[in-house]
């Protein structure tokens, strides 16, 4: 039962990163792929109908985490107090910059929100990456059951690391790069004209960097958290996930070569999902490793809520997620095809 919830939460967070990832990526590249006001409106219209729904996956995953693993939720969120506050403020700024920009045609107003949008997107992508790095590396959980992570210490991954050290920064850069590439492929797929051309060109450059970065990040991980690789060897049933990630990466390269927009985008979605899934699968049953004492690590067994509750929750969760998926399919169908700008009065 606890294991099932681990899978469900990993699934929700993966969907979150894949979906919100493309609008973060589009945000990171916003200033580069779109120069004129019409081009920028094209980018915003491409992500406009989706970004809020994408973010709901984070909200829903958060709610699910409180429900299934209250200890993890409370320990991790209070431990990363300041980094999280910064993320929340950035999320606020990013959300309003998408929605407020269109309400005024003053060029300074629009440039201001464009820059806010791009900067906030980049910073959140980096922070998401750094949090992933922290989850893998572990945090200084002690016998009180809580920890407090400073923003950074000496940038080394010792027993008392900060939220930022060389490893988490490495993961952060890797994640931001992949999300930028993901966003570029999304724009390549959903837009036309100069925006699509520029996105395609950027996508090629970014994805060339992804492979070497992936190798560096993997080596870094094997050094910081060797347990993951021991698990990989002892759990053959997780190998297909690895295969998915590698194959999806190949799909990205092949489709970019043949200029197949949708399959390139799906490839990068598969790559992100595969990488996250393999990481989660090898971490299991640990959710939050302790750098001080493995006995203090939070696992699915010592941090979950009661079995009856979890069973009841499952009964509710399944129809809920089916409904959510149905909404998303409907939404993507309703806004299918390339974005065409409407006359300047409505929309973004």
């Amino acid at each position, binding site marked *: 039962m606890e294991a099932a919830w681990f899978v469900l939460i990993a699934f929700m967070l993966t969907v979150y990163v894949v979906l919100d990832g493309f609008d973060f990526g589009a945000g990171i590249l916003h200033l580069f792929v779109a120069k004129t006001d019409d081009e920028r409106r094209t980018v915003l219209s491409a992500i*406009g*109908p989706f970004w*809020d*729904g994408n*973010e*709901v996956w984070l*909200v*829903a995953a*958060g*709610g*699910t*985490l*409180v*429900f*299934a693993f*209250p*200890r993890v*939720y*409370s320990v*991790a*969120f*209070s*431990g990363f*107090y300041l980094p*999280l506050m910064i993320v*929340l*403020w950035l*999320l*606020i700024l990013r*959300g*309003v910059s998408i*929605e*407020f920009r269109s*309400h*005024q045609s003053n060029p300074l107003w629009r440039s201001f929100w464009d820059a806010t949008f791009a900067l906030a997107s980049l910073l959140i992508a980096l922070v998401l990456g750094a949090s992933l790095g922290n989850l893998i590396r572990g945090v200084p959980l002690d016998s*009180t059951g*809580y*920890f*407090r992570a400073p923003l950074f210490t000496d940038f080394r991954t010792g027993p008392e690391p900060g939220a930022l050290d060389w490893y988490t920064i490495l993961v952060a850069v890797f994640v931001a790069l992949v999300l930028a590439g993901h966003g570029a492929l999304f724009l390549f797929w959903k837009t036309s004209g100069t925006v699509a051309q520029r996105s395609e060109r950027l996508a090629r450059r970014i994805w060339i960097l992804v492979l070497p970065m992936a190798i560096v990040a993997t080596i870094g991980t094997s050094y910081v958290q060797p347990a993951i690789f021991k698990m990989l060897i002892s759990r053959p049933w997780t190998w297909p996930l690895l295969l998915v990630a590698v194959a999806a990466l190949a799909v990205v390269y092949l489709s970019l070569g043949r200029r197949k927009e949708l399959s390139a985008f799906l490839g990068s979605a598969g790559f992100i999902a595969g990488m996250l899934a393999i990481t989660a699968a090898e971490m299991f049953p640990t959710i939050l490793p302790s750098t001080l004492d493995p006995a203090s690590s939070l696992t699915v067994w010592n941090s979950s*809520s*009661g079995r*009856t*509750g979890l069973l*009841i*929750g499952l009964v*509710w969760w399944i129809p*809920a*997620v089916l*409904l*959510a998926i149905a*909404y*998303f399919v*409907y*939404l993507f169908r*309703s*806004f299918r095809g390339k974005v065409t700008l*409407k006359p300047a*009065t*409505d*929309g973004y």
Partner: protein
Amino acid sequence: MDALAWDRFQFGFTITYHYLFPQLTMGLALLIVVFKLIALRTGDEHHNEVARFWAKIFGVNFAVGVVTGIPMEFQFGTNWARFSDFAGGVIGLTLAMEGMFAFFAESAFLGLFLFGEKKLGPKGHFGAALMLFLGSWLSGYFIVVTNAFMQHPTGYVVGPGGALHLADVWSYLFNAWAIWEYLHTMSAAVITSSFVVCAIGAYWALMNLHQPHARICLRIGVIAGLIASFLQLFPTGDRHGRLVADHQRPTLAAMEGKFQSSARAELVIIGQPDVAAHRLDNPLIVPDVLSFLAYGSFGATVYGLEDFPRELWPDNVELLYYMYHVMVGLGTIFIAVMACAGILLWKGALYRFRPMLWILMLSAPFPYIATTAGWMTAELGRQPWIVYGLQRTDHGTSPNVSGGTVAFSTLGYLGLYLVLGIVFLYLVGREIAHGPVSRSKPASA
């Protein structure tokens, strides 16, 4: 101040701010459905224009509601870690379901509603409005269930480690407290939105602008506002009060400023509590009525604060008392205002009777005040408990987050929300100045 005080201030401030936006959007969602329905049935284009105008206001409010809502969810973990740890196994269910069942629907259909009118056609567009309404009212229910559990826990068991586990979903989801709290809150949201719709209608009428639209706003606004104002007092406010009387006796005593228990208890209309001296200064009272309102009989005994040990008293009796009286006082005034406006509407004189239009135009802020006062009553009245009777608020904080840190983040929220508020008001002001008629066409004054 220590961490607890800052935590409480931060939560109170951010939730109050957040709730300024959903209370309008939830009510407006209903009114927009009404406008669209009339437009669909009669083919009247003015109703569609009014719906489009309010959809724009809705959009701006929704955006701010969304971005200020996300910090709320995370604050449970960041500032109230021991509370999340303790109650998460129960309240997590509705926090998750709110996202899965309601927010997905809202965000999906908002895009369709705001940008898809041509694509969907009139029926489809009405459907999108309806889904938006259902989504937002459903999210209201889930969050109110969460709050009702904190007020009056049901459906849980205490697990082996001391944390709460969900045992009976139905008694959790259909907690009597949740049902009355929900009806009262939703009715309040309809009050807020009808007052706002009336205020804009009155403004146009007074300025001699957009006459047909002004009439639509005034007519629908007054009818909805009148119904909701009555529902606010009876049955929802009345039944909600009885639940407090049954399950939170010290709270009721503090709300009413009652220090000594008595049968045939009197209802206080005005008066200032003096907590040190255990009495109410210069009270204006109606004899016997409180016993009747709380327990249905004039002879029933109502307990006073002195019947309870001091550590069970809400810790801010004065503020609780004032907030409760502000809510009820404003509620009574709303009924009076809407009743007068309703009579004038019925006589066909509302659009020309300028004093009433002035009153309607200036009333718009007061439902926000009443709602905030109502929440302050509920949340201060819950003290000293964070989960009533089960966990005390001072046992709910994060042990690893210091007061200074929370002070810092609180100041961050204050600053950010101030800027957000200014930009919000500016944008809403612009939409109002544009009026209901599409910008390319000349204004039909």
